[in-house]
Structure formats: C-alpha cells, structure tokens
C-alpha cells in the first residue's frame, strides 16, 4: 500500500479518533498563534487582495481544522476596513476524513454570519485532496498558506529503507535511533531535503509575491539526527513492539522492515532548503518546546474520569490516533490494544525521570517578488 492510502489520522469521532485525541496538535497551534497572526497581517498588507486565496495544508479533521481557519479569518477581519473575499482550501491526502470536516461547515458558516456578518458569498471553503509535495493550486492563486503538524510526514519511506527494498538496515527500530547506521540517517535526510524542496517549489509557483506562509512541524534542536528529542516517541514504540516478539505476537522481521515516513529536521536543515529553493524570505524561525502531553496535564480528563488513565496511557492515545492506520497496515489490527498499552507503560517510566518534550519548529516566510 502506498503512503497515500495509509497515512491518515484515525477517522471519525470515537474513543481512539484523531478528533478526540488531537490536544497536542492543538497546543502546537496555540503556541504559534501570535506568529500566525503577524504572518497573516503581513500578507494582507503586502498583497492588498480583493480576493484572498488561503490554504491549510495537512488540514486533517477534528476540531483543530476549523479552529485554525477561524483564527485566520478573525485576524483578517480585525485588520480589514473592507474584508476581501476569502477562498479557503483545506488540503490533505485523499484518505483523510473530509466528510467529518464538511459536515461541520453549515454551522461554521452560520456562526461566521452571526458573529461577523460574513456571508456565504464572501467566504468559500473547499476541500482539495492530494499530496502537498507537488502542485495543488493554480499559479499565483494563494496569498496565505498555513501548515501545522504535517510537514514532518515524508512523501514516502526513504527507498533504501522501504519494506520492499530487500534490506533491513535499521534492525529493531522504526525510525532514526542511536543504533541506526549512518546510511539510515543519510537516507532520511536526503528524503526530507527532496520533499521539502518540492514543497517549497510548488508553493512558490502557487503564491503571489508578498504572500505569507506559516509552517509548523516537529523538529529537533541538536545537529545530531539521532538525539533523543525528536526520536524518542518512535524509540519507545519500537521497544513496545520488540517486547511482543518473544511472546510471538509480532515477528522481529516485521519490525525490521518497518520505517516511519517521518523526519524531524534541525533548524539548519530547514533553513538550507528554503535558501536553496530561493523564492522565500525567512521572517522568523523558532523552536518551541512542547510537552508530550500537550497543554496542561490536568485539563485532559474531559472523558472517562472513572478510568483514570495514567499520563503515559493518555500520551499513548494521542500517538495512537496518528500512527494506528499505518501500523495496522503493517502488523494487523489485533495487536493494537496490547501494543499501545505497553507503549503507554514505557512512556510512564520515561516520564518518571524525564520532562518529556518535543521540539516544534515554527517558520514564517514571505514570497519574494
């Protein structure tokens, strides 16, 4: 199965859905709020659009999707004497659950009308299914682009590491690790460089001069790609999988042949590609620390308090919502509950002696003339 078919978040609104388990991604959006606002305002002031093309790339589904769009619309509304017409495209891969986003649109539109007097003939929201590692929109049609928690997903597993490559270069691991040979790090870096370049080049064609782009995705601060911050959630997931091998629940070969289509770049690696592509000016590049638990640990119990899930189990839910479709296609559905229970336990142990953090990179750029 190609990436296009398996890389999607858990659908619907159930217990293990992305919709119910995307608080970390929500926190990431919140933390970048003021940079987003500035980036949107800059693009309005530089391009003075009468009709403004806006795109959210990797929109997924769930409450965060329309929250981001709201933030963008609110910023434009507050800054504009006369609102431009808004053409908003929500993009994700074809397997994304667009239906659940669309079903919330009628209420979204009526709130817009009620709160800001913005009518259906002034704000148009479309769904665009396809990979952002290529052209999605007509030339010069976009004034503002947003992408959050998406660009750490590569277009494919690096070919040398793909399960069909016949070689198992990254034994016992599913991402870059301290035990990974150099060729694994090189393969991942190369794939990221190619993908991110394609992303920037495509956006360069689609954006007008002066247009703004706000990108937010997982990264790392160390120059060493195998440093703990940036890899450790995959490390623990691999450990959980490996622990199931002696019991015959999982074959070691299955783990050896799986590598995540993911990369957490350093700020330098990002900057290099942007400069190489050449069409964008970097306004801001910042690395934020985000706890593995998203916002405050205490505001998480909005569903089953009686269950009293441990912190590790709660984190396991958020990771599960994201990686389950990919793991199911590789290992089958039967082992998922057990896998994530074990993963949650490993996270609890990790929490007991570390303040577990992700690094999230936020980059604001402007399309040059």
């Amino acid at each position, binding site marked *: 199965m190609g990436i296009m078919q398996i890389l999607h978040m858990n659908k619907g609104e159930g217990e293990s859905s992305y919709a119910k388990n995307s608080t970390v991604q929500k926190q990431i959006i919140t933390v970048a709020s003021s940079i987003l606002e500035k980036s949107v305002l800059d693009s309005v002031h530089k391009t003075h659009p009468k009709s403004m093309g806006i795109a959210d790339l990797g929109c997924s589904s769930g409450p965060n999707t329309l929250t981001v769009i709201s933030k963008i619309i609110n910023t434009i509304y507050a800054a504009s004497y006369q609102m431009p017409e808004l053409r908003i495209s929500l993009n994700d891969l074809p397997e994304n659950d667009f239906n659940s986003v669309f079903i919330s649109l009628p209420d979204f539109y009526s709130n817009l009308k009620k709160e800001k007097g913005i009518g259906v003939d002034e704000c148009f929201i479309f*769904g665009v299914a396809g990979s952002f590692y290529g052209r999605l929109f007509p030339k010069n049609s976009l004034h503002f682009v947003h992408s959050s928690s998406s660009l750490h997903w590569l277009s494919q597993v690096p070919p040398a590491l793909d399960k069909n490559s016949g070689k198992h270069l990254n034994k016992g691991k599913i991402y870059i690790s301290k035990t990974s040979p150099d060729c694994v790090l090189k393969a991942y870096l190369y794939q990221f460089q190619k993908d991110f370049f394609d992303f920037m080049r495509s956006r360069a064609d689609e954006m007008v001069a002066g247009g703004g782009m706000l990108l937010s995705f997982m990264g790392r601060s160390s120059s060493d790609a195998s440093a703990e911050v940036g890899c450790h959630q995959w490390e623990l997931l691999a450990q959980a999988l490996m622990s199931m091998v002696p019991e015959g629940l999982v074959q070691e070969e299955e783990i050896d042949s799986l590598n995540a289509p993911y990369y957490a770049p350093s700020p330098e690696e990002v900057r290099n590609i942007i400069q190489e592509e050449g069409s964008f000016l970097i306004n801001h590049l910042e690395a934020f620390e985000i706890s593995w638990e998203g916002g405050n640990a205490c505001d998480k119990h909005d569903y089953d308090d009686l269950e009293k899930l441990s912190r590790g189990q709660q984190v396991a839910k958020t990771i599960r919502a994201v990686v389950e479709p990919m793991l199911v296609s590789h290992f089958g559905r039967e082992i998922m509950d057990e896998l994530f229970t074990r993963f949650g336990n490993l996270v609890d142990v990790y929490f007991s002696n570390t303040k577990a953090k992700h690094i999230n990179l936020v980059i604001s750029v402007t399309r040059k003339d």
Partner: protein
Amino acid sequence: MDIEKVFHMKGGLGDTSYSKNSSLQKRAADKVKHITIETMEEMFLATRPKSLGIADLGCSSGPNTLSNIKQLVDAVENASRSIAQPPPEFRVYLNDLPTNDFNTIFQALPDLYRELKKGKNHGGPPIYIAGYPGTFYGRLFPDDCLHFIYSSNSLHWLSRVPPGVSNINKKSIYISERSPAQVSQAYLKQFQEDFSLFLKSRSQELVGGGRMVLILLGRSGPSHVDRGNSFFWEILYQSLATLGEIEEEKLDSYDVHFYAPSKEELEDEVRKEGSFKVEKVEMFEMEKDAGNYPSYGMAVAKTVRSIQESMIAHHFGEAILDKVFDIYGRLVDQELAKDDIKSITTLLVLTKLL
C-alpha cells in the same frame, strides 16, 4: 428538519450504495452526452479562457462523478487542438451537500489524475479538482469564476418539503390523486423559489457566454397525476402503507422534497430571471433496462433506496428499509405488467447572456 443536515445519497461502495446503484442515472446522462460535450466545446471556442472553471452541482459520489470530468476535459482538449492552441488550465469544483460522501470521491482521485495524465505531453494541462460542500440554492462560488456548469439528477430535489404540506398531504408522500389542490400549488411555489434562486446565484458565478447543462426529472403534461415520475412516489407510498408496521400519523406526515417540473415551468423561471438564453430543452424517456438485476422493478428499487434511504431512515428508522424496498420492487414490476410507467428526463441547456 434541515435537509442540508440529513439528505444524502448512500455513501461508500457497498451493495446498497449510490456508487453501486446509479447506472440508471448514468444512462440518462450518457443519452445526452453528445449534447454535453458539444456545449462544452462551443463554450470554449466562444470564451477561450486561459483558466477554465467547471462545476458539477450535485456531484454525489460514485463512478459517474469522475467519469464526467474526464469527458469534459477531453472535449476541451479536442477543441483547443482544433484551433491549434494549448489547452487551458482546468479548475473543477465538485459540489454537493455537506452530508455527501466526498471521501469516496477523493479516494478515487489519484487514479483519475493518473488517467488524465496518461499519454499526454508533460502530463497534459494542469487540472485542479476541489470538493465544495454547500447548497446550490444560494451562492457557492466567487463572481465570474465559472465557464461551465453541469448538474445531473439533482435539481428535482427541493431545498425543503414545501411548508405546510406534511400537515395536509395525508395519504400521499408526493402529489397524488388524493392530494388536496393546495399541495401541488405548494410544491410548485417551492420549486419556483428554489429554481429562481439557483438561476440567480449561477448568473453571478458564470462568465458571460458561459454554459449550463442541466439534467433533471420532469413531467410531460400539466398534471402531476400520471404514470410518470410521480407514479414511482405513489408506489413508494403504497409500499410503506402495505408494511403495516408504521404508525399512520408517521406515514401521513412524510413527504418528499422533490418536484418534477414541466417544460413550461422551467422556461418560465429562466425567462423571469432574465440572465440566460434557453439553447435547448428536450424531454426524453429512458428505456427500461434491468441491467444486472432480475427485473426492472428490482433495479429501480435498489436505485431509489440508495437515494431515499437517508430520508426514510431519518423519519421511520432503519429497520423497515429491506422490507419496504422488497415490496417496492415487486409493486413496480406488477404495475409495469399492467401498463407502462414513463420516467421523463429533461435536458436544459442555457447560455449566460453577455
């Protein structure tokens, strides 16, 4: 009850889905394909846009949706070749209500893109396809954004059941011989409101010289009580009544948000709205083909189920669905054995005046 939140064709790819049960609709569209393609070519040659906007209003979900796109794109590419010009960029908007199963369409897109690029220089012209949820009874798109609008088997669906009808139309679910006179008046009024709003909205979205090809169910004479499309609703009513499991009050209060206009009713609204010229209006009857089904009745039953399931389930619950459509299929066959039932389809081609 908000139609926008309940009404949709049955999604997915399963046995009772619209995807698997829309061959009747496909045949209707195929019958006039040559006119659709001709209209597209004429429009292109008249307007010669660099960036061509196409909208399918009421695109639903299933193989018909995407095969339409390919035909339209091919038509324009041929036309542009005939004048030795490069083809335009295509912006394709697939519109339906927010409850439509867009996921199934999107999942089929990678294959469509591959097919569109096959064998063409540099992969052919750029084609951007977007899904656009919303009701076409009102504005959907920015001004002057479209050159060609296609709508097949959608405009006979009203924005709502005409107000008051569910209280007075007791022993019917549409206009029947038992309906009081006010019922058909109410339905006509709702159609007029809806269709005129449709035209007004499209008028601002279409460029001058742009074309619309509209295909919808209709009726040939002034009376609704005939053995045409309204008769299929009569049979559905009889199927529900025969079940014996439904409370009388529930059945009395169920009515469909449907209207089969006559040629005159369509042309009247176009004339009143004033932005469009009627290029063509044709009515035709589809041949009765059972396809892969044991009988035509069963073919119709499966088709109607995939269309009506959301509304019937919402009003009566899901449990009765299998039985109702079983009875329905048999009643259709019984009626056909007695006398013909003619389902009329109308084709309307309009040009936006400059």
